[in-house]
């Protein structure tokens, strides 16, 4: 299996490992980890640093009743959760190809989701995660489809789940996680053969920058 070439970068991996990354972005990172042994190792190392920092913390004295409350709870909940008591949620066979943890956020196979058209050759499924303006969605591009030229007011994370796409900086395939900020002005094009399915998170609406769309955006602002 081919390992991804594009990674989230150290700062985002640190935010994921220390727990400060919000759920939509954490979902993209964690799904990339399924494809990427290299980033899994980075995260394991960052967690080990977290463990060492916890060890270094100056102990904060507990209230006198904390221990007795703990032992009482231990007594109530001392049985390990039995396997059978956990809800048995077997994924549908069609869902098995979808990597975790994304799979646990979907209730139907990719092909059966409620895809809505957003632009020519482009459809989306909103995952309904996070608070506006953050959006997490699946994007599906038809083979050869072109996303209109745009830039980002904030951050965009895009993880390739099937097929691939390219822009002027490179081409992206299964498991690649591309992070773009407002310095990037690009016009992604889906692979000719298969098109592309991506997990996409943005924290601000896109800004169109090409030709007539730039004109429209500017007119709207004035």
């Amino acid at each position, binding site marked *: *299996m081919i*390992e991804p070439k594009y990674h989230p970068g*150290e*700062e985002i991996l*640190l935010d994921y490992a*220390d*727990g*400060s990354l*919000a*759920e939509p972005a*954490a979902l993209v*990172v*964690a*799904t990339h*980890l*399924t*494809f*990427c*042994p290299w980033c*899994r*190792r980075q995260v*394991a*190392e960052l*967690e*080990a*640093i*977290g*463990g*060492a*920092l*916890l*060890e*270094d*913390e100056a*102990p*904060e004295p*507990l*209230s*006198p009743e*904390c*221990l*007795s*409350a*703990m*032992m*009482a*709870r*231990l*007594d109530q*909940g*001392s*049985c*390990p959760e039995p396997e059978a008591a956990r809800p048995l949620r077997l994924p549908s066979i069609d869902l*098995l*190809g*979808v*990597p*975790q*943890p994304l799979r646990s*956020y979907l209730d139907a196979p990719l092909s059966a989701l409620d895809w809505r058209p957003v632009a020519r050759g482009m459809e989306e499924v909103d995952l309904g995660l996070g608070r506006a303006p953050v959006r997490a969605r699946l994007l599906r591009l038809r083979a050869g489809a072109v996303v209109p030229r745009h830039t980002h007011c904030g951050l965009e994370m895009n993880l390739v789940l099937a097929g691939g796409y390219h822009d002027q900086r490179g081409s992206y395939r299964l498991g690649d996680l591309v992070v773009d900020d407002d310095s990037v002005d690009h016009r992604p094009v889906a692979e000719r053969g298969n098109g592309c399915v991506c997990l996409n998170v943005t924290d601000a609406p896109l800004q169109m920058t090409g030709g007539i769309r730039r004109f429209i955006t500017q007119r709207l602002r004035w």
Partner: protein
Amino acid sequence: MVDAVPLDSPFAGAAACPWWHMRLAADVATLWAMLETGLTDRATQGRNLDELVLAVARERSRPAFGALFGHFAPRMKSYLMRLGTDAGQAEELVQEVMLLVWNRAETFDPAQASASTWVFTIARNKRIDVIRRERRPEFDPNDPALVPQAAEAADRAIEAGQETARLRAAIGALPEEQAELLRLAYFDDKPHSVISAERGIPLGTVKSRLRLALDRLRRLLREPV
């Protein structure tokens, strides 16, 4: 087979067994005395933290759990309070984390992570769950879609158990401004830009100091002993 579970087994039902309550009270009294005299910390040093978790997994050992509680609970309380949780809620959360330690001890794998790292990840996830009310997305090591590590050579240079001790020594040897930023990154839920504004340090400097610190610690983890 009513008698299949011996009375003194941790699996014996508490309701059917008043003797169990007496033991519980005795446990609390002993452990409290240990905590007050700082004995657990000394006991913990004598007995490796990893072994204590394994003892909980194998024998449901209450003394081992008590020693883990004595060691980790006050540190976790401090960690959670730094992140803005008040003392009462921090103790509540600490108990929930330690309950998970008790219930999930079987899943602890000392080859993967040290006990401190394992507890850190449980505390981190519990905080996301309770305080932020969010799920914590994580990859599944048994996922058929998981791309495995290519070569055995990529194995860790040092054992997970030694990792924490080596890292602590290395963190202690970092320049103070780097160690401070590292603690802020892990224990304050603040973006780097906010840290930069609060400390009056340019954002680029915050990032480069943090990177220097992480690079140094990473190199240490990859060096053979």
